[in-house]
């Protein structure tokens, strides 16, 4: 896992890495991914799922309902005139 890829991955993941971190993580990840290579020879499966037990067809009724008052949730956020404040866009 070379340095260039780690930089790109850190970029996508929105992590600013120091020089030291870049070195260290490149080494760690190379070691880890080398070990993960055994997945290449692992058996495949016809079965499919994102969960270890089958989670299927769980639906919710279309009934509006708010369990928690909105202002309770907003009380800890940085707000201005009911809007939530965020960083610059452009």
């Amino acid at each position: 896992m070379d340095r260039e890829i780690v930089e790109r991955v850190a970029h996508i993941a929105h992590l600013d890495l120091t020089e030291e971190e870049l070195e260290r993580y490149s080494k760690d990840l190379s070691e880890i991914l080398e070990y993960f290579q055994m997945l290449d020879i692992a058996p495949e499966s016809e079965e499919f799922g994102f969960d270890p037990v089958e989670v299927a067809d769980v639906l919710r009724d279309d009934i509006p309902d708010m369990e928690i008052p909105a202002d309770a949730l907003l009380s800890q956020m940085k707000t201005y005139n009911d809007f939530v404040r965020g960083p610059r866009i452009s």
Partner: protein
Amino acid sequence: MTSEISLKDLKELDSRYNIFTSMTAEESVDAEFVFSAKDNLTSKDFETRAGSRILEGYTPGFDATPIRRMRDAGGFLAGKTNMDEFGFGTFSANSAYGIPRNPFDTNRSCGGSSGGAACAAAILENHVALGVSTGGSISCPASFCGVFGITPTYGRVSRYGLIDYGNSLDKVGILSAKAADLTKYLPIISGKDHRDPTSCVQPDMRRSLRRIRSVAVPKEAIDGISEDVMKSFESALELLRSMSIDVEYVGMPSLKYSIPAYYVIATSEASTNLARYCGMRYGQQEGDLTLKFDDYFSSIRSKYFGDEAKRRILLGTFTRMVGYADRYYNKALQVRQVIIAEYKGIFKTHDAVLTPTMPFVSPRFDDISKMSALQSYKADFLTVPPNISGTPHLSVPCGYSEGMPVGMQFITDHWNEDLLLSMATEWENAFDIRHPEVKL
């Protein structure tokens, strides 16, 4: 039936062992029972930080369902227990709030990531602890602290209010010094919750407890464990045989793929779950908003995520990237199904699979600091298989080596928690469990 329960020792014990990240100031309380919850379960009354600095200040507006159900049953939440940041770790050494110390030897780890929970269960009187397991974070600390720990089937307990590590792997469970607590409290926190769809496909938990009469020990599981663990484990097998439980060695060749498959799935999911932590809406929010959003997010995340969190985010972002996802993420999903199928095959002829819980007793802190990331991942090779397959499992103390507890782990098929609950009680009656000396 409520009674007055004293909490006056809590503060002193916490300062000695670093059990809690938040705790009650009450000295005594009138309640049916007292419990603690791992700090990745949201609680209205306490800050919930999941062991991370990035969530400093987050006081959720809602209780996690397991906490609500315990409270509804008359429980008093005494505090939130210390843990590895977001569950990333095997020794609770990755907490931003101090490291929990093992009650049998304070120079050693409590295990992780539910280290605080296991410690609380081991040293607080009449205390039941809610823990969470993703790759073994209930079993491991239970084993290192010499207590019982049950991890139910994936989907048995609602995860509403659980701060995500891996959505297809996280499970809320129970740690306690007493087997009876597992039987009493697991049904309370279990059951369908419409707020968590994955909890809505479970069959009812069996009321009458069946007995484990046969166990299968995979050869792959005893390869690479330390001598002292091996000794304790073999004595335990003898004791089981004397309890008329059949013990047979079997082969489970797919187990060797469980670590890579687990870490790929877990970190892939975790890297998406942690994307939301960016200095807006909760937790750390004090950055400079005139920065462009990409830079603002990166600066907060880089500053407040710990080392292991960053490593796992990088790993998990990579394993699902275009060009790599098929080889890692998609393959790992398939390998999980292979492991599940292998377990199901064994369960056709045996009530449970049995292995040691951890390959060694709790290590010293200075030894842990010398371990590489890969080495600590590999230490999970016994707890990861039931966790990746979502099968329920129970760790029980089964021996002691130089004063440190050794644990063993029973694994049953999906939804068969009753077999584990009865085993816990049976084992408690048969085996001499030691408790740590706690001088106040």
